[in-house]
């Protein structure tokens, strides 16, 4: 079913779509039917810039195990970078 589980956050950075890099504006995180991945539901990440139109989009669709591992890995990488003194916020 359509879960309607989705949240949008503002993000700063760049994303690479089919026609090159673009400035990111938002990230949409959802758990719902994927368009492409062969699962009934997937954790979808859509990195977009709504000001540039709907084609400014970089997307991934992950299974739950991959999504959880990604979250842990992101946090681990940030922690390591922080310990190394590389993060200035």
């Amino acid at each position, binding site marked *: *079913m359509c879960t*309607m589980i*989705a949240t*949008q956050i503002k993000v700063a950075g760049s994303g690479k779509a089919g026609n090159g890099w673009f400035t990111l504006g938002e990230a949409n995180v959802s758990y719902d*039917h994927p*368009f492409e991945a062969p699962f009934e539901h997937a954790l979808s990440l859509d990195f977009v810039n*709504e000001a540039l139109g*709907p*084609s400014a989009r970089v997307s991934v669709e992950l299974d739950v195990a991959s999504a959880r591992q990604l979250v842990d890995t992101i946090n681990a990488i940030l922690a390591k970078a922080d310990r190394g003194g590389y993060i200035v916020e």
Partner: protein
Amino acid sequence: MQYATNQYEGMIAETIVIPGHNGDPIGAYVARPLGPGPFPAIVVIHHMPGWDEWYREVTRKFAHHGYIAISPNLYHRAGHGIPEDIAVQVRATGGVPDDQVVGDVAGALAYAVAQPTCTGKVAVFGTCSGARHAYLAACRAPGFAAIINCWGGRVTMEPQELSPNQPVAPVDYTKDLTCPVLGIFGEEDSGPTVAQVALLEQALIAHGKTYEFHMYPDAGHGFFYYDRPAYRQAQAMAGWKNIWAFLAKYVG
């Protein structure tokens, strides 16, 4: 209707613009048989993945079977681009508002009945969120002759599932339903589950509504979609057979 290989068959299929909710112009894909008819009609409500190629194909499928079929673009106001990119935008906003959907579907119904080749009998069909929208619109925009609900999730909703865009569960409007419902469901679907389908059935019985439900074994969500791993050939063929029989009985 069964066609014979020595019969003439013609169809026109094209995008048009119709007035939707609040009179807003929205796109719609219409496929209709050529000739004076008259033909029954069907409003074809697209699913969450968007106003996409599968929905173009199913709209033409209905026309091939003798229906004036109109598929309104419920995501028209979100912008334009490839259907998937637009669906991503709509998903991020929590889906299109239910009031807007009802208005857009009513606009499509009005278009259908106004056609000189239409019998005046119009069904409404949807899969996934489209089925939820079909049920909602049929309750709130009277005039439909039949509903075809293919695995519509969130027709029954828990309080925590309600949102500003979807403030009322469609099942709560069941008392206002004025046409029969065909339900096509897969036993392995996680939404609607077998239990959720049973809740919908209870509501239909409680309000004395006419319905016909089919729960297919070894099938889950979206088992008509030949382009997805969910496709189940035998169950899909059986489902379509039930759809044609239901339409013949209640719509023509």
